[in-house]
């Protein structure tokens, strides 16, 4: 009966989509541990994320070669600041990058040392300055040593 011809066309299209799936969809795509609602994915993606490059190495990575600044920093009130916070991620230093940036800008210090007397916040316990009042335009490191957190250089 000719009335079913369009239905056959549609079913053929549907079959084509199902056939295409076997070619296109990766074999590890399926329902994983969290069930269909939350765990419908390509399993290899998890491994791909685990292999993402680590950039920040942590202060322990720096302290052996840079012993002196490390010692200074850790006997100063700045001891809790990671080296990489100011110097950027070590990644594969010293092979790549060979040198890490030494950021001398005012803005770096103002992150903590803009005086914000906020009650209930630990920020209020950090000594600071008014950025529009104290030595505007000058680099803080001109007078202050960041590793020793002291006024004199």
């Amino acid at each position, binding site marked *: 009966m000719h009335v079913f011809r369009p239905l056959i066309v549609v079913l053929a299209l549907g079959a084509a989509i199902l056939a295409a799936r076997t070619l296109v969809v990766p074999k590890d*795509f399926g*329902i*994983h*541990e*969290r*069930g*269909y*609602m*939350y*765990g*419908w*994915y*390509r399993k290899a*993606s*998890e491994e*791909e*994320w*685990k*292999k*993402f*490059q*680590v*950039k*920040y190495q*942590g202060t322990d990575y720096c302290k052996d070669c840079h012993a002196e600044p490390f010692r200074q920093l850790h006997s100063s009130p700045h001891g*809790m*600041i*990671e080296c*990489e*916070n100011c110097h*950027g*991620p070590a990644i594969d230093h010293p092979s790549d990058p060979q040198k890490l940036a030494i950021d001398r800008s005012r*803005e770096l210090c*103002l*992150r*903590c040392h*803009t005086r*914000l*007397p*906020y*009650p*209930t*916040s*630990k*920020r209020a316990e*950090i000594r600071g300055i008014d*950025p529009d009042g104290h030595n505007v335009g000058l680099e803080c490191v001109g007078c202050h040593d960041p590793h020793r957190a002291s006024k004199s250089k």
Partner: protein
Amino acid sequence: MNRRGFLRLFLKGLAGIALARGLDEIFWRPEGLAATKPVRWVFLVDTYKCIGCGFCVKACKLENEVPFGADVSRTWVERYVLTIDREVFADTPKEGRYGFVTRRIDLGRGKYQEIPPEKIDKAFFVPKLCNQCAKPSCVQVCPVGATYQAADGVVLVDRKWCIGCGYCIMACPYGMRFFHPVHQVAEKCNFCYHRINQGIKPACVLACPAGARRIGNIKDPQDPVANIIMTQRVSVHKPEYGTDPQVYFIGLSEEVR
């Protein structure tokens, strides 16, 4: 009813029950196999300790290759200032990537609010990051299965499969998701999945000088973070959305948006 009729009815009943159980199994298995895994990552944010330095935002962007100058981030820091007139001011200038270097509150469109210190009743900083919800609405709405929850609770995005429709971004009640400016697919915090699977801390946890950010495994009874969550007064952000967020806060004041 004869034997044949009875048999037919019985088989139909069985089929119906099987269908119902099957659909239930496929569409909603609350914990599924994940329940048997030994790790479920949780995060702890202490808003009393946060000093608003923004090193966490900087570290996150550099670690996870989100362009530093782009106005999007996997994590950010918010500032709240409550005045004695019971007004609440909040801002997050450049998501906190340069820290908070001025007392003026950024109101957007080039406007700023000066608040004299004597008028401040309380003020604090709130770091925010993806809650890796136990019932993530963002995963529910992905049409192609490009975003998913791993067995250890972290919600990830498959960059090779995401079509960039943006439905997950719309579905997150916390505004955690965005389009990566370079990869042009959905992007969000994943607890530095590459780091925690090697036994090292996420970049933001490492960077925080004040110890305001901590990560732990709720299934490990020896874990200090799990201990705090279980024994101290903690709260989660926007529980009313039913997503069951897994980032816990100490000192999450009711003004926090």
